[in-house]
């Protein structure tokens, strides 16, 4: 029995988001969407987190930060790229200080499209990530 599915704790990091997806992530915690129904807690601490939610594309300065946060998370862990910028760089892909989507740095498990991604999409994304977490947990046990 894996409990990852029942209590996915998220860590949210804003790489270079325009705040759109960012506040939608926060909005998904609020009464209307209430992701805590699925046991989601926005921890703010990589050590406690299971899912790393990244909004926005990455730039030179945020790459080491993201890498570090990912490293500090305990296994099993999943990465969810929220919003078009995080998945591919979006409209900013051509900017000089944008390296591209999160997949340039970390193995992304779930892409959540949208500009800005809606709370419903984010909920879907988290639930999808839960399944991935469970698989990873099984893989860990098997090892």
């Amino acid at each position, binding site marked *: 029995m894996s409990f990852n599915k029942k209590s996915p704790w998220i860590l949210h990091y804003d790489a270079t988001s325009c705040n759109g997806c960012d506040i939608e992530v926060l909005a998904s915690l609020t009464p209307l969407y209430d992701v*805590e129904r699925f*046991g989601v807690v926005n921890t703010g601490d990589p050590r406690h987190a299971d899912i790393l939610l990244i909004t926005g594309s990455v730039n030179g300065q945020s790459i080491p930060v993201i890498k570090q946060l990912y490293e500090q998370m*305990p296994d099993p862990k999943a990465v969810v790229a929220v919003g078009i910028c995080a998945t591919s760089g979006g409209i900013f892909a051509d900017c000089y200080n944008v390296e591209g989507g999160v997949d340039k740095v970390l193995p992304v498990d779930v892409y959540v499209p949208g500009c800005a991604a809606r709370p419903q999409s984010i909920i879907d994304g988290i639930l999808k990530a839960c399944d991935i977490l469970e698989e990873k947990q099984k893989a860990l046990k098997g090892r």
Partner: protein
Amino acid sequence: MMLAVKILLIIIFTPLAGGLLTGFDRKISARLQGRQGPPVLQPFYDVLKLLQKETIEVNPSHRFYVYVSLMFIILTALIMLTGGDILLTIFVLTLGSIFFLLGGYASQSPYSVLGAERELLQMMAYEPMMFMTAAGLYYVSNTFFIRDIVNRKMPAIIYLPAIFVGFVFILTFKLRKSPFDLSLGHHAHQELVQGISTEYSGRSLAFIEITHWYETIIALGFVYIFFAADSIGTHILAVIVCLIVYLFEIILDNSTVRVKWQKALSLAWLVSGVLGTANLVVLSFFNF
């Protein structure tokens, strides 16, 4: 033999009750906030998940303190629930808390240390009232033993109303509820990240959570002592009061800000000073 069974039951059922209370807490909080909220068993899911997860360490020793802390908290629960000495309960509880915050220091990570520092401050803030609670209970019953205190004719609350109020005030610290959740809150947005528990993951974090469950029950146990006497009715009343107090703490949690340390310290000391002293002085005036 009976004692062994009793000890075993306490060790098993205390955290279960604590976890369940926490679950209800989260559910009720969510409802107060207009949300659906997680399932009641959510705290258990969380802990079970944490037990399955990887445990990362930052240095070889920091996790250790959490385990010792848990052991002492269990010991506290044992002393308390088997009707032991109330001062000893407080001392061992303090010891448990000290070990917990040493864990924060040991990880030598900025936010853990800040959290430990605040935790220490909180302990300093609530300790006088704990002390005076024990003093008051001893005053009215002439014994430190909980089993004797709860077997008196009259519940202690009759003589110690002010101390009880002061104690409920302090309880907010112990339960880590706003306005006094300075060192480690259950809410996400805290300037200290996660305070002492910042560096703990997986199993160690699960133990911290379990420790908190024990602590919740221990804290409510004190409330119970105030109301219990040698009739069944008072015991039922005591349980009901515990639940009401817990509910009150939840509502308080949801309708106050997190105060700053200066305020927390001065408020706690003021309240314990005024209420505790007044109660004791009145008692001694009537030469009880």
